[in-house]
């Protein structure tokens, strides 16, 4: 369990680095590329609490790191809660 949590920790620390790398090469996802090529625009009706893994007022890398921490904790709690409910 300790090791598993270490892995999650390492992944979280990696997120701003990967965000920086993605920025550096300027690549985007295939789905976004297809949409751009075919002239399709997004039409968001809901942006979320931390839109696009950013925290308003913070630089994108700190925002990504905080998003990774918040998201991992929330996902853990949701999945843990679901499995507890099913475990009874």
């Amino acid at each position, binding site marked *: *369990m300790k*090791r*598993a*949590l270490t*892995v*999650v920790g390492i*992944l*979280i620390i*990696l*997120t701003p680095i*990967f*965000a920086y*790398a*993605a920025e550096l*090469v300027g*690549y*985007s*996802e*295939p*789905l976004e*590329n*297809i*949409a751009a*090529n*075919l002239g*399709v*625009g*997004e*039409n*968001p*009706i*809901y*942006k*979320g*609490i*931390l*839109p*696009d*893994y950013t925290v308003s007022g913070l630089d994108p890398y700190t925002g*990504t790191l905080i*998003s*990774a921490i*918040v*998201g*991992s*904790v*929330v*996902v*853990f*709690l*949701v*999945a*843990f809660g*679901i*499995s*507890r409910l*099913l*475990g009874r």
Partner: protein
Amino acid sequence: MHIPDGFLDLPISALTYGLAAVSLGSAVHLLKKRGINESRIPLFGVLAAAIFAAQMLNWPIPGGTSAHFVGAGIAAVLLGPLQAMLVLASVIAVQTLVFGDGGLTALGANIFNMGVIGVLVAYLAYIFLESRSRSVGAFLAGWFGAVSAAVACGIEIGLSSIFAYNIFVTVPVMFAWHALLGVVEGFATAAAVTFLTKSIPELLTHEVKAS
């Protein structure tokens, strides 16, 4: 490969919501009947958190695109298909509701692609090869999990009017890039499964009981 709002036609959005709901409902029903091993509950949560964090890593693929792990393969191998579906659904729901990654109207499609199709195809690939080589099975689970989810996504947007029904563009493009990303995910899945089964051998025993 999270589909945002505005990409899918209403019938596709509704159909995938339905399919995702039926699949998750069946998974919950079967798991309730069978019961989850109490000792595996923390693994369930930690794996979900790990998949969330891993999906945040966008791997640049030479040639101008980047793609992220799906995690359907490793979840299917370690937890079996039913729990894996719920893990991926938890991850995708949080991504959509907290981070706006993937649209509300496409949540059904995103859960269906990564959490149902990705998981089931990955699991089939794994059990097909597990007896011969667990690491090859895990590699293919990682590859098929990412690629099948991407192809499903390509089909759904390709059948939507806003993409002018360009299914013969969307599917090959989604397939090709994720076939490359899938190699990275395949190796990561095989490495993780090999490492975990060596350090915690009892991790995979649930499959024997399940079948």
